[in-house]
């Protein structure tokens, strides 16, 4: 079963990370899910694949009533992002899924109906969670061609999807990045191979540098906190991406 860690809290405004399942089979990539709660509502960010649904569900329901989830934010279309969608909808069929317009007719293959999906335009948009305004920030081609991060200005938290992701070796599973130089080695290959455009990467770095961010929360690996956030942005800005050997 996964564990939950509250990584931000101010009254009923919370960010909860759902992480690290020791029973997960090795053939499935490890993923982090995040729950934002505000008022009585919740928004689940990249809820994960169907195979890990039981582990995510049980961890989440220890913190929050799953039928009170107002929506799901899908950073992009991959199966490890939201192939569990149909299962979450069993708990609240009125739940909405916020996703790039580009994937609006692809993700319904995982479940849902025409009413389920809220299309995010390329330039991004605001998403309200019981009055809390969250911002869908464009991160196109990083790695998906229709890709968004989610920024919470109040909490100064940024869900960065695959940006900042690291494939950590067994035993190195701390929630936060502790030694940046050591950690970033596990992120380098991933970013070089998965991120498709230096131009898109440049724009993302410029855009995100202007935001006030305390934590950068990727979908795989550890969370960047404090000075490590800017350190990551600088490192990413310098990295040449879209490279495959052979």
């Amino acid at each position, binding site marked *: *079963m996964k564990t939950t860690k509250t990584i931000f809290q101010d009254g009923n405004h919370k960010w909860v990370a759902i992480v690290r399942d020791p029973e997960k089979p090795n053939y499935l990539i490890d993923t982090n899910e995040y729950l934002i709660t505000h008022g009585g509502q919740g928004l689940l960010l990249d809820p994960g694949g*169907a*195979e890990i*649904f*039981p*582990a995510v*569900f*049980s961890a989440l*329901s*220890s913190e929050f*009533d*799953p*039928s009170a989830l107002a929506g799901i934010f899908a950073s992009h279309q991959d199966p490890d992002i939201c192939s569990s969608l*149909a*299962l979450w909808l*069993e*708990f609240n069929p009125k739940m909405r899924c916020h996703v790039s317009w580009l994937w609006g007719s692809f993700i319904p293959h995982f479940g849902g109906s025409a009413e389920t999906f809220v299309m995010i335009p390329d330039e991004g948009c605001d998403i309200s969670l019981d009055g809390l305004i969250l911002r869908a920030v464009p991160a196109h081609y990083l790695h998906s061609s229709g890709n968004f991060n989610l920024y919470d200005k109040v909490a100064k938290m940024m869900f960065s999807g695959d940006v900042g992701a690291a494939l950590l070796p067994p035993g190195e599973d701390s929630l936060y990045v502790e030694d940046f130089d050591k950690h970033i080695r596990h992120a380098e290959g991933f970013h070089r191979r998965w991120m498709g455009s230096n131009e898109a990467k440049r724009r993302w770095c410029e855009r995100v540098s202007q935001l006030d961010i305390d934590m950068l929360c990727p979908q795989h690996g550890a969370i960047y906190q404090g000075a490590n956030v800017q350190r990551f942005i600088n490192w990413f800005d310098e990295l040449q991406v879209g490279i495959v050997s052979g």
Partner: protein
Amino acid sequence: MTTALTTRLSSAPQAGVDLLRIVRINEEIKSVVGVAFKINIMALNAIFLAKRAGTAARGFGVLSNELRVFSQDLRDCMGALTGLIHGCVNEVSLVLQDLRHTGLLHQAAVLSPQSKAVGVLAAREIQNEQHTRRLASLRKQLKRALEDAFQMVELGGVLAKSAKIEAAYGQSFAVPLAQVSGEFDNIVEEIRASLESLRRSAFFTGN
């Protein structure tokens, strides 16, 4: 694990096997449709041959026309069977999806017995039962339609054998008429064998 769920999870391989059996039935139906089309063309040629043979082959001509009608009826019948097959594929796919989702919801309910997963699982099982019942109903309809097709082919067999007898009265055309009627008979037997194997399909017998 509940008894109902144990039954459903153990039926997962059964649903997969059912899908495979449906695919085989569909392939057999496609081959029957192809053969039925061949009868149509053969019957048309037989009608021309009977016309050339004149009054001696009038009976043969009538039977050839009936065989042509038979081939069209058989194709319509196979079309209806194909529609039912598509319905079965749809329901088996839903049952397979139900099984996967039910299994995952069950795991969630075991990990969080106090959560709403237990109630959602119960609701999911009611839907699963509906899909299973619809599949059972389609299975019965398909079996009935197959029996109807078999009866139709019995009639086709009688027509082909009667054509063989009529060919003997074809005087100077007796040999070519006998050859054509023999081919009719062989093809109808081929269809009968196909339908016989479909009747024995484990999809209906449940073995």
